[in-house]
Structures are given as C-alpha cells and as structure tokens.
C-alpha cells in the first residue's frame, strides 16, 4: 500500500512525500512573525521565506495536514482515538517518557536538516527513487538505531 502510494505521488507530482519539511515551515513562520529582521538576515531561515507569500503556503504543509486527517480517519475506523494519553514502556514513568520524546524529537529535528529530510522524505521516498543520499539516510537511521538500542533498552522493554 505504502509503496503504491509513493508511485502515485511520483506519478502525479514528480516528487515525494515528506514530514519534517512542514515543521520547518512552521518554525520559519513563527520566527518570521516574532522577529522578522532576524529571520530575513539568517542565512538559513531566509532560504525558506518566499518573497510574496507565507512560508506556510507550501506543498508539504498541506500534505502534513492531510497526514493528521488521514491518521484521525484511520484511528476512528479502528477505534484507536481516545483522550490524550502517554504510552510508555513498562519500566518507566510517563514523565520520563515525555522527557525522552522531547529530546528524541529535538535530535530528529536537527538530524533531518543535515539529512535533507527525515524517514519519509529522505529514507523512504529517496531510497524508492534510487537516490544515493536516500539510501545513505535509510541505512544510517536504522544502523544507528540498532547500534544504540542497547543503551536505551530500559525505555522500552
């Protein structure tokens, strides 16, 4: 199913799916709203500020809104939508889980900038289109995951 979706996406748009890009657009928008001069003078943010429209006016932002909706739709169908809760391994508390989720998220945010995309945009879609860099990112993420899994085993098992 996921493979067929990647093909359809390429067939229609000529490019792939992604997820971290939408968060980047959001960050750029917030920075630009709060400190417009800082954003314009930053060599990184300024790359993502179009001249005549908002950074949120972006393909990946709409696609990611779709991901939220699609996730909700599937959750409703399979009865997995419930009130806010935290899922964690048997040996840790919710608080600890949330702390590690925050740190892990931040690392993923930094890593996805160096990697030119995250698991979706770089590893999945990049590898599918035979991109050399996509395969590097795929092997890197999963390889490192296995290498460090032992250190963090208490979080999960």
């Amino acid at each position, binding site marked *: 199913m996921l493979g067929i979706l990647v093909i359809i996406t*390429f067939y229609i748009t000529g490019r792939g799916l992604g997820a971290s890009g939408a968060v980047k657009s959001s960050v750029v928008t917030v920075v630009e709203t709060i400190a417009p001069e800082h954003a314009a003078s930053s060599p990184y943010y300024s790359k993502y500020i179009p001249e005549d429209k908002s950074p949120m006016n972006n393909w990946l932002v709409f696609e990611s809104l*779709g991901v939220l909706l699609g996730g909700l739709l599937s959750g409703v169908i399979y009865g*997995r939508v419930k009130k806010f809760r935290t899922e964690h391994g048997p040996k840790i508390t919710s608080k600890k889980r949330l702390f590690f989720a925050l740190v892990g998220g931040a690392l*993923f945010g*930094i890593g996805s900038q160096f990697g030119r995309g*995250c698991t*979706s945009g770089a590893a999945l879609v990049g590898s599918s289109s035979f991109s050399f860099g996509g395969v590097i990112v795929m092997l890197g993420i999963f390889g490192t*995951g296995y290498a460090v899994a032992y250190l963090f085993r208490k979080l999960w098992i």
Partner: protein
Amino acid sequence: MGPLIPNDIITGDWNFVIALLLGVAFGFILEASGFSSSRNLAGVFYGYNFVVLRVFFTAVIVAMTGLLYFDYFGWLDLSKIFILPTFVSPMILGAVIMGIGFVMGGFCPGTSFTGIAIGKMDALVFAIGLALGIFIFGETYPLFEDFFNSGSLGNVTLTDVTGIPAAWFAIAFTVIALAAFWFTATIEKKVRKNITEYKF
C-alpha cells in the same frame, strides 16, 4: 504522460488539494499499520515487533519496481522526477543523529503526526521537540554552514554513483528484504515468548 504536474497535465491550482489528499492517504496507511504507537515502532530495535521493517521495505521494493515499470511502459518519465540531492558527510551525520532520536523518542516526524491525531501525548511532545530541534539548528546554522554544504554530489542516483543499472538494485533490495522478513519473523517469535506485558 507522467509526472502530471511538472508536465502541466494537472495545473498548479490543484497542487494543494492533491497535497492534502495524498497526505490523507499517507496518514491513513501509517496509522492503520500501527505506526501511531511508539512501542510498535521501537519494537523493530528490540526484536519484539518488526512491523516497521516489513512495511518500510515492502514500500521501498514495491515503489522501486513500480517506478521502473512505469518508466518502461512510458507512463512516467523518470528523468523528470525529483531525485533527493546527496551530501555525503552531512547526510551520514544527520542519519546518525536521527537514529539516536528515533530510539530515544520512539517516533519519526510523520508517525508522530498520526500519533497526535489519535491522542498520544508522547507524539505531541515529540513534535514539539522536532520544532525545537529545527529552531536550534536554524539559530546555530552559521557555525557549521560549510560542513552543511560539504560532500555535495548533486541529485545523483545509485546508478550514477556505481554505474550499475537501477533494475539490479531493485532486485538486490527485494532479495535482501525477503531474507530479512524471514529472518526477523523467527527472531520475533523467540523474543515474544519472553515478553508478557506487551499486547500485540
């Protein structure tokens, strides 16, 4: 024929509607595969749940093979699709950082969105971390701008780098994936015997 938008068969006005619809399909598949649960995702690193590996590699080999067939039948011009550019050392570093983030955080960006959709606090906090990480990166970017742009090879494919035709990579990935499915299924069986507090 394809790709439809770059070839102006579908005009740019439809772009965002299509983006939303493709996103809905993506989110639905991720959630339905069980990727809205960090414990399902982390299972791939501890041997109790290899669903990530199965879904991910099935998708890659189906897409690889499918794109080659679409190209072969003339439905899709592969020279017009976007190939992710390669920056060797920054990408290796980025992937290593993401790998650590994956094991610590239990999500990747796309899966955290589906987690938020069904009410997972840990997914929401992960996404906040994500924004924080990108902000930290944006603020400190001048410090490592040179490294960030180093190792650039352009928009190269595996074939450009090795000279081996794409079809061979599709076959190789398929063989490796099938071997991995069989191997991980046996591991999963053994590990699950010893885990009692996790519902499958």
